[in-house]
């Protein structure tokens, strides 16, 4: 099997031990990109020469005893709304088709300083809002478990790339579920961190009070390795000023014994969850219980209310950001994203403020719940990945509570359905309990996440 299927933890350990080079790992990832990107469209830009040069430089540093840490020499994909100095960052839009930033986003500066290698920029919905669309400069990403299926979005390419072994880890952004939904449908782990834990400067905004960048990896343990580097103060993002140092890599393998976990039947009043997805979530909950957690049910505000608040705030804030370009260059936007953004213009200030007030009530309800619970688990999506282009199923999501409250939320794989498509559950925690979420995710993955099964593990010629 290609080394590109190693987790970050496994690859890092081998690199540190001298049994694997960054050059070999990066070469294997590039070979898989060459073989599969034509089908999956996970990357809009691949930096073959630059990545190989960076890998060789990393190997030289490591050989000289100057290994920076676990991410040194690890190839990563970065969502194409995250600015990377000297590397085109399009937002998947004709509007920014030739945009080459002079400075990197703070989060990439952190990863790069930790020795990570930028192997390419990953596909996204246009400015993270436009849905699966075919009128953009680049085609939409396809699901590696079944290319006739949706990846979920908007961090579609990041999820597809990690799931297919095209890179070791990736960055996504999440405004209403855009890290967690594609993570769920592509069978990987995705963390939406606590608001203010990961800096957003240099990330194209969608909705200022709902946007959260986060790691997308094969395992919760890998998310912890990335968060160890990503979390912390960003001088250009005031929301990060209170970010505490959290023990991600230590905590992730320490289990859930003694934790009080609330099961939130989030979709009961909303829309039904498919039986196989619900059964898989039950197995995940059983795994947490067997690992020593105390599990009880919890009641929280209706999902419909949370979705309504998220809808009004995100439409208002995204319209505000794009308004000038919508006026001056509307033809540069794709049809769907233009319509979604323009619809934000009908929301008045009073409605936006009312939504923010209800948001505060929702935050209070979650804070009250976390007086009695350490974690809450609920559905991530109501189904497995729907057929490509079928956006209606996107209504069956349990993701928006994390964005509205700013609380950390983690999507973790619970196994595969009868068709071989990945399923997932969601873990939510109190502010800055991100490391505890990842520990719970690790327990679920070990018990039922089928982490030995990989998408497209056969050579491409065998797929037909």
């Amino acid at each position, binding site marked *: 099997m290609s080394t590109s299927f190693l987790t970050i933890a496994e690859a890092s350990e081998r690199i540190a031990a001298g049994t694997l080079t960054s050059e070999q790992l990066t070469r294997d990832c590039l070979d898989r990109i060459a073989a599969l990107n034509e089908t999956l469209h996970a990357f809009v830009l691949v930096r073959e020469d630059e990545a190989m040069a960076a890998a060789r430089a990393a190997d030289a540093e490591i050989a000289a005893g100057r290994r920076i840490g676990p991410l040194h020499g690890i190839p990563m994909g970065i969502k194409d709304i995250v600015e990377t100095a000297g590397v085109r960052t399009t937002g998947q839009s004709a509007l920014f088709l030739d945009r080459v930033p002079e400075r990197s986003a703070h989060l990439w500066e952190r990863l790069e300083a930790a020795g990570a290698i930028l192997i390419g920029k990953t596909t996204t919905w246009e400015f993270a809002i436009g849905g699966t669309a075919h009128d953009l400069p680049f085609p939409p990403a396809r699901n590696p478990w079944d290319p006739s299926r949706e990846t979920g979005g908007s961090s579609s390419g990041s999820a597809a790339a990690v799931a297919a072994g095209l890179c070791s880890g990736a960055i996504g952004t999440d405004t209403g579920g855009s890290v967690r939904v594609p993570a769920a449908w592509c069978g990987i782990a995705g963390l939406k961190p*606590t*608001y*203010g834990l990961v800096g957003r400067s240099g990330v194209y905004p969608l909705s200022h*009070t*709902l946007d959260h960048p986060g790691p997308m990896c094969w395992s919760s343990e890998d998310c912890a390795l990335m968060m160890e580097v990503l979390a912390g103060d960003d001088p250009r993002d005031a*929301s990060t000023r209170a970010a*505490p140092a*959290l*023990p991600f890599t230590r*905590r992730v393998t320490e289990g859930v014994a003694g*934790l009080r976990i609330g099961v939130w039947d989030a979709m009961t009043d909303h829309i039904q969850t498919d039986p196989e997805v619900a059964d898989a979530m039950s197995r995940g909950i059983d795994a947490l219980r067997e690992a020593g957690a105390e599990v009880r049910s919890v009641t929280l*505000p209706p999902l*419909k*209310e949370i*979705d*309504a*608040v998220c*809808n*009004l705030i995100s*439409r208002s804030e995204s319209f505000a950001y794009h*308004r000038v370009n919508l*006026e001056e260059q*509307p033809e540069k936007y794709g*049809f*769907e994203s*233009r*319509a*979604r953004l*323009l*619809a934000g*213009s*009908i*929301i*008045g200030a*009073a*409605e936006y403020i*009312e*939504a*923010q*007030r*209800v*948001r*505060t*009530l929702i*935050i*209070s309800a*979650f*804070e009250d719940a*976390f007086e009695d619970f*350490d974690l809450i688990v609920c559905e991530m999506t109501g189904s497995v990945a729907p057929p490509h282009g079928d956006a209606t199923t996107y209504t069956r999501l349990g993701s928006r509570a994390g*964005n*509205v*409250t*700013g609380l950390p939320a983690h999507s973790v794989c619970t196994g595969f359905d009868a068709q071989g498509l990945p399923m997932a559950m969601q873990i939510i925690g*109190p*502010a*800055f*309990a991100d*490391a*505890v979420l990842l520990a719970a995710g690790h327990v679920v993955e070990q018990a039922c996440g089928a982490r030995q099964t990989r998408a497209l593990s056969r050579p491409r010629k065998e797929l037909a």
Partner: protein
Amino acid sequence: MARDAATHSGAQRDAYINHRLALLGLAADEASLSRIRAVADDLEFSFARVRRALPFGVEPCAGATTGLARGERVK
């Protein structure tokens, strides 16, 4: 005014959308308008839902613009 749009259906709501876009100097062709109206249907539902959730006389406003829940609890 936007609430008027939310509580009136059909032609009145569409007229409001056209008026609002014109006021902002925003252009939209007929196909886009049709799609905007569909998204507006969804927003209309959201307006109503938020109104029902907000008890009159309560003033939950502190911290409402950050989305950041307070507290720090790490086990």
